[in-house]
């Protein structure tokens, strides 16, 4: 059974890394997951979890995963937006945890937009 005392050890480990994670916003990539009623009902929570875990696992210090409300296209939820500095925003629709992992590895890490999941590909 875990106890809160273990947090102390993690804290000490983290303290040494604080400098690494201090990224200035200009160079940070923002991933935003729609988390209103529509998003949650369509399965945004596991998408969110998958993204946060994968970003942590790969130690992507320049990436932040955030939540937002209703983006306004409820039938396409779960929606994930990727905003990288100097690039146009990419909107992924009808996401699930598996697709989320692919977006991290392909788009965030390798810089190739996963076109088949984007809103452009779906709406055609």
């Amino acid at each position, binding site marked *: 059974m875990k106890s809160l005392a273990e947090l102390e050890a993690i804290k000490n480990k983290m303290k040494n890394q604080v400098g690494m994670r201090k990224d200035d916003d200009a160079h940070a990539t923002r991933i935003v997951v729609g*988390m209103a009623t529509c998003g949650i009902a369509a399965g945004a929570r596991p998408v969110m979890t998958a993204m946060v875990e994968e970003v942590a696992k790969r130690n992507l210090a320049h990436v932040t995963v955030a939540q937002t409300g*209703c983006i306004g296209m409820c039938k396409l939820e779960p929606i994930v937006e990727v905003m990288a500095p100097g690039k146009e925003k990419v909107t992924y629709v009808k996401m699930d945890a598996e697709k989320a992992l692919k977006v991290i590895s392909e788009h965030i890490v390798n810089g190739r937009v996963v076109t088949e999941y984007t809103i452009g590909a779906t709406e055609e």
Partner: protein
Amino acid sequence: MLEISLHILDVINNSVKAGASLIGVTVCENKKDNVLSVTISDDGCGMDPEFLKTVTDPFRTTRTTRKVGMGLSLFKAAAEATDGSFSITSEKGKGTTVCATFTYNHIDRQPLGDMAETIITVLSGNANIDFLYRHSVDEKEFVLDTREVRQILGDVELSGPEIMLWLTEYINEGLAEISQSV
């Protein structure tokens, strides 16, 4: 919604939008009395009596992107489908409390679902809000108070990924422990 924990996530997001600084989430699985109750309370901006009267109407919402707001109406419908009950009390400037009770063994009661994921999702998205999560199964109780966690962490971010992964395991282990039947 497929899980009660998703309703909880949704209603917590209302509290977040109400500018709460402390949000309480209490889940009581009282198997002896065949009742599952969920209470979410916050110290946010609250509602005036006028708004409160119609707040579970799906056509009542504060959002501006469209004219429907399904969160509370879905939660209410889910509780009432199990012969349960639903209530909201709110005072302008003080905060809001939402309480739903379900008949535990009712065939239409959704599974509670992944509570750890719900709590972690709200924690990681709201670095400045404190949460008091209490979950009991009959006499056993699990409590997570983020104020306590923050005290241990000092100036290390609570919403950091390492902390989130650890807390997920902490909650899952805690819930497994209280769910064990004797």
